[in-house]
């Protein structure tokens, strides 16, 4: 508004002498119109210029060779953007920062850019940084037998601080790092490069990642609908860490009848994942395969089905007491039903989910065939409030005659999008016929720009 007035005033001032000379009414009207047009043109140029400056500052301008022809003509100018802008520094967009880095490389003729430059714009080259705190308190009677895989939480615990570093690496790939600082040390939860521009619609990842076995295994703690993980996860799929290993992953959307989304994922890992897979030899790699089908039933309801398979060597000892050549195979089926009415999407939603997992663990003397599942429902009954329940049932992978059962109920409150308070009551009946009643409390809080997680 101000600039319009300013531009107008300037124009009027400049033309004032002209004006006073010719005072014929018809001329005046014509001049007025011309002036107005002139001011308008000036304003248009100003807005176009502002847009270019914004593009420069956030370096949204494309680095890809193909994008050099963007109409903005700004792409080539991006590296010179040393102008500092408080807003772009405070929160560089997910896309922006790395893109500028790429542009800087291009501008310096192949030489590595000076990332430590004194210019404040250098900060814009940083990846998106986020920290998510996960504080858990527990009370009640945790009567877990020593042999159970599910062990109680301590009374108060800074369970995890997850640091995320995410950026677009170059026009062909992006990088994501998630480091988890727990009470016992630091763990690279995930760290991988994703190749987004492969031919044929393939998407590939290389690094350490949570494998695509089922649903819960892929989820970080802070996106779980519960404080803990289901019994079947703890008993059969290596608990909180899950199948999380170094290797590579290829996924592709498959041709399917109209309206159905079908995606296949194949992964190859070193073969070390918690207590599920152990690589005794270099050749003991593990594999994970996942097929996912998805369909929108209505615009607010959708169904997501998956089947998973994982195979790797385990830590069972041979009859001679040496590392044996034993294999564990896991089969999984998962189903998720979601409902979210679009007009009231921020107030109400429902998610029902379930996973069934079969484990075949070869060991001496006999193979252990365990089965387990969970099923849960979560309902959002107000903008900030959620309630949920879960039923657990699972054998133990090493003792398939021992079965743990449990139920849990949760209440979640969101003060804002960036923090979450959750209470959970958990009842567990262990195979040893011991019961535990526990109350868990969790506070999750998020700093910085944490990229959205896949649906």
């Amino acid at each position, binding site marked *: 508004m101000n600039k319009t007035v300013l531009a107008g005033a300037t124009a009027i001032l400049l033309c004032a002498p002209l004006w006073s000379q010719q005072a014929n009414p018809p001329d005046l009207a014509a001049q007025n119109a011309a002036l107005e047009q002139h001011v308008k043109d000036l304003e248009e140029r100003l807005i176009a210029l502002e847009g270019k400056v914004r*593009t420069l500052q956030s370096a949204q301008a494309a680095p890809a060779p193909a994008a050099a022809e*963007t109409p903005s003509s700004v792409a080539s100018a991006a590296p010179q953007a040393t102008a500092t802008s408080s807003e772009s520094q405070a*929160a560089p967009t997910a896309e922006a920062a790395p893109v500028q880095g790429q542009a800087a490389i291009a501008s310096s003729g192949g030489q590595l850019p000076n990332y430590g430059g004194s210019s404040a714009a250098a900060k814009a080259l940083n990846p998106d940084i986020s920290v998510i705190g996960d504080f858990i308190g527990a009370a009640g009677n945790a009567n877990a037998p020593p042999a159970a895989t599910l062990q109680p939480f301590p009374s108060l615990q800074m369970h995890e601080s997850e640091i995320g570093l995410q950026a677009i690496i170059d026009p062909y790939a992006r990088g994501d790092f998630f480091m988890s600082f727990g009470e016992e040390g630091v763990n690279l939860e995930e760290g991988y490069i994703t190749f987004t521009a492969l031919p044929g*619609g393939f998407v590939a990842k290389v690094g350490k990642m949570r494998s695509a076995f089922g649903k819960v295994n892929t989820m970080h703690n802070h996106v779980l609908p519960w404080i803990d993980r289901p019994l079947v996860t703890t008993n059969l799929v290596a608990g909180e860490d899950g199948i999380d290993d170094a290797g590579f992953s290829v996924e592709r959307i498959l041709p399917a009848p109209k309206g159905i989304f079908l995606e296949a994922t194949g992964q190859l890992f070193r073969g070390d994942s918690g207590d599920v897979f152990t690589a005794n030899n270099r050749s003991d790699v593990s594999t994970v395969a996942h097929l996912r089908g998805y369909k929108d039933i209505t615009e607010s309801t*959708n169904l997501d089905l998956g089947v998973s398979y994982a195979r790797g060597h385990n830590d069972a000892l041979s009859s001679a007491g040496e590392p044996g050549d034993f294999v564990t195979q896991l089969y999984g089926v998962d189903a998720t039903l979601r409902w979210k009415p679009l*007009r009231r999407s921020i107030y109400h939603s429902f998610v029902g989910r379930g996973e069934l997992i079969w484990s075949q663990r070869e060991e001496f003397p006999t193979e252990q065939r365990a089965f387990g599942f969970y099923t849960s429902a979560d309902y959002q009954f107000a903008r900030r409030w959620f309630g949920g329940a879960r039923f657990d049932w699972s054998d133990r992978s090493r003792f398939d005659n021992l079965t743990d059962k449990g139920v849990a109920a949760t209440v979640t409150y969101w003060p*804002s999008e960036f923090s979450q308070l959750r209470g959970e009551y958990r009842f567990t009946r262990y195979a040893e016929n011991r019961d535990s009643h526990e109350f868990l409390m969790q506070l999750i809080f998020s700093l910085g720009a944490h990229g*959205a997680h896949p649906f």
Partner: protein
Amino acid sequence: MQKANRVFVGVVAVALLFALSGVAAAKKLNVVTATTDMAALAQEVGGDRINIDSIAKGYQDPHFVEAKPSFLLKLRQADLLIVVGLQLEIGWLPPLITQSGNPRVQVGGSGYLDASQFAEILEIPQGVVTRAMGDVHPLGNPHYWLDPDNGRRVAKGLAGKLSELDPADASYFQERFQDFDKRLTAAEQKWDAEMAPFRGRKVVTYHNSFTNFAKHFHLDVIGYVEPRPGIPPTPSHTLDLIGLMKRENCKLVLVEPYFDLKTPNSIGSATGAKVQVYLPSVGGEKQVTNYFELFDYDIDLIKKALQ
């Protein structure tokens, strides 16, 4: 093993065929937009030379769209992805782009277009931005399409982009833009005349999605039902707002179609102000199918409420 190999070759062959057929059939540009407004503008300039599809619906909160896999089916075939930008879609679009397996629509790819670069952006925060301000957009207010002048600017930019991707139809796109420009100018004169009696009138909106509209039509937005962008109403803020509206004699509360009407209605009954659901986007109601009808609808609504 032999059999497995044959199956594998078969799968690859089918996949290749599919990929090739996709290329061969790509006569029309496949354009996917984040919101219906961008789709409406692209439709104006693209005419029948493009296929257009929007991810978010017009009655949906564009900040909170679910990144459903079904959208990937649209994205993987897209030649051009048009986003509103200014971090409006930051909560849901980036994972879709990554998973799409479509190099064209990756950020910086030839088919990625941030339309905000063409528009006049208001409310760019100055100084330090923190989340204590709520879900503030550090790059400025992303609801810029509600100023017809910005619609024209974006359409012009889109015509340029479409011409670049499909040079054979460049003159067609330019002609369509010229035509759109003419019709919009005529419509603007009508709208400006209709809104002229209400110049300077005070309104309250739920979210700050109305800024560009208010600027263009000289309305005065004196407050919001949300205490901060993205933060649900609190009792103390609501009381403050009621006091403010009484002092300023504000008689209209505008609510986006995706917000609950409970708080606005109680504000309305406390202040005597009318509460109206206005449309921030094309497709917010069935009868609003293009960019012109969006303004027709909203102006009609505001006119009736303020008379």
